């Protein structure tokens, strides 16, 4: 029975595994192979050049500049997104005033808010980027943000946003947060719903306030979900390609201030026709992303609380 079971499972898995191998694993393997050539991407011939591309990458200021921006985003975007997501989810599910017959409730209109928060998630990222680049339009009459600031008398805060070297990266990061926070509100809401009500009840009887319930009950019981969200959000922060490519001034500008690794890769491949070098960048990105995911999994692990 035992060996028959595995054969049975393998039989079902064969087809998806073959498809996975062809369309996911083989491109990965090939990227390694291409990264050691000087392939232009335009013709079928390429020379093997060993690790030269990686050496070039190591010495490239542009690449380190791009990587640094990804690391900045990695440090800020997941924290802010998850914190906001947790906060909103808590308010929508637990944070409301106590009502009759209900131990914990969300704030009034929480169903509606949930819908609103989730909305950016259903819009394609390209559309999000276009919408926001119009919001950031520096024109004081046509740009939404600037005209809003003008209308409420805060002319002094009007800015060129994406055209401002010190602000551009954070303008794009803000869009990233905006675009993803809704997903985490819904994710955390679902997770919170599975926390037994009697735990809250006991805490409330002991006189715990919202602050205590959040940090002593909700957050520890959600830790697994938060950790998953962290990895997921981190990978998004290490990408950021679509937003930067569509929104940023001069493709990663002003003067390289918003350049990110995937954009550099794209430019190297499609503008400069250096697919070999671009593949080396892809490998470098893979290493960075994997390192991040492994470190997070390793150090964020905590004792599980069973309920």
């Amino acid at each position, binding site marked *: 029975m035992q060996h028959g079971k595995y054969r049975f499972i393998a039989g079902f898995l064969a087809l998806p595994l073959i498809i996975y191998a062809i369309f996911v694993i083989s491109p990965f*393997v090939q990227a390694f*192979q291409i990264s050691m050539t000087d*392939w232009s991407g335009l013709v079928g011939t390429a020379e093997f050049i060993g690790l030269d591309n990686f050496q070039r990458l190591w010495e490239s200021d542009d690449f380190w500049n791009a990587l640094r921006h990804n690391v900045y985003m990695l440090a800020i975007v997941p924290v802010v997104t998850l914190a906001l997501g947790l906060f909103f989810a808590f308010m929508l599910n637990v944070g409301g005033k106590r009502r009759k017959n209900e131990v914990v409730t969300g704030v009034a209109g929480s169903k509606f808010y949930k819908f609103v928060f989730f909305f950016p998630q259903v819009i394609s990222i390209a559309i999000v980027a276009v919408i926001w680049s119009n919001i950031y339009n520096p024109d004081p009459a046509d740009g939404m943000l600037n005209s809003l600031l003008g209308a409420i008398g805060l002319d002094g805060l009007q800015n060129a946003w994406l055209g401002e070297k010190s602000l551009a990266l954070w303008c794009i990061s803000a869009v990233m947060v905006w675009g993803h926070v809704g997903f985490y509100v819904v994710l955390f809401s679902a997770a919170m719903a599975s926390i037994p009500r009697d735990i809250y009840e006991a805490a409330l009887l002991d006189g715990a306030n919202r602050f205590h319930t959040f940090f002593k009950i909700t957050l520890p019981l959600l830790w697994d979900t938060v950790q998953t969200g962290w990895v997921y959000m981190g990978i998004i922060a290490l990408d950021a390609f679509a937003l930067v490519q569509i929104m940023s001034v001069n493709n990663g500008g002003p003067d390289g201030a918003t350049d990110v690794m995937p954009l550099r890769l794209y430019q190297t491949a499609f503008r400069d026709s250096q697919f070999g070098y671009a593949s080396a960048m892809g490998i470098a990105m893979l290493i960075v992303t994997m390192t991040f995911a492994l470190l997070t999994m390793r150090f964020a692990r905590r004792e599980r609380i069973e309920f």
Partner: protein
Amino acid sequence: MGSTSAHDNEGLGRRNLIKRSAALGLIAVPTMGFLSACATGGDGGDDKKTDAPKGETSEKNPLGVKNGVALEAFIFKGGLGDQYAKDAEADFKATYKAEVKHTGTQEVGPKLTPRFAGGNPPDVIDNSGAGHLDMNKLSSQGQLQDLAELLDAPSLDDPAKKVRDIIHPSTLEKGKHGDVFDVLYYAFTIYGTWYSQKLLDDKGWTYPKTLDEMVTLCGEIKKEGIAPWTYAGKYPYYVHFNLFAQIAKIGGMDAWMAIDNLQPNAWTGNDAVKEVVEHYEELAAKKYFLEGSQGLTHIQSQTAWNKRKAVFIPNGSWVENEAAPTTPKDFGMAVGALFDGSGDKHPHGTLRAEPSEPYIVASKGKNPRGGMELLRIMLSKEHAQNFATKVKSLTCVVDAPEGMTLSPGLASANKVFKEAGENLLSLQLQEWYPALTDEKLGGLTGQLLTGELKAAEWIKKAQAEADKVAKDDSVTKFQRTS
């Protein structure tokens, strides 16, 4: 959700499942070795000679296009749209009873790179726009059809005249890689300072002749509460259209060619560079640029200009078509030639005019003869005029605009073009080294115009960036002597 750990000992635990699938993945990897028939190993080497279909040549069909063989056209759909190409394709279809597959796109490079690598490129490509294919690489790798046959074929309108004789000499010059003519730049772009004639007339201003006059006029304009200049901060290379050309006009083409050829000290050793970059520094210091321009797209800056928020904008002749939706009826769009500086090497009225919209025919496509014939159709007077009417831009067919009514911007462009006569400048730097001009110098220029960077720094850094490219073996280098 919550925790799943309570169920870990039932059946295949999550951890075990992951371990096992990882193991399966490891087995799968080596077996994929032979399956991955490797992208680099595909066809497309020099082994495959063109087995192009060829029909009978005749007076009507000098290139010997075979009837009924399908043609595929890939047209850049940017400021000029792609309707003009569709019109020519319709004629091709009617004449040769062949299907024409048309694709209009803004992403020529990303879409066609894999097709060239795979050995099945489309026949005709309008390789324009920010994401265009690297034509130097394509040419050196034998992917481009030699268009000599097209040049020697009789033109559609007058069999006594060869195609070579009806197109502009600089188009013939620019389309060459070495001695082979393999790129047909169909349009002619006039670069310069664009303005509204009506606005100038209303205010009693005249288009300045020199850089100094420009600074003076900017002061007057600013007093009226209008910004003298705006530009597409999102694409700072728009500023280079004027900035680079102005350097070439004052310093002379020999000094500019040193810049094109990435020679040492080409930027730092050229006094015209100093004069022009300092001019822009002055404009920035006196706040003569519309506030926020550094964050505007080309469309947004053109719209602000159409709304008279700014008087001048550096641009190319496609602007009339591109800005048409926001241009007021009585705007009187006009373009002016380059300004005089001190000790100019080129006379007043010198203009930067570049053959543009590079059309290429893939030598390894399915119907290269059909591709050339489509170009011959497009070079007929009928289609050149259709282009001028539809997209308000000049073509390389020299006599095409004769006897037709031109739109204001096009008429103005045609006028400065005629006035410039032989004094046309053609710059290669952006075409050859877009990573240098658009990304690196563009970044510097962006800062120059916001006043964050001084002219002296701009020049020093520009030289350093150019030197870096000159030393980089992975960038294909070019040389020009004329």
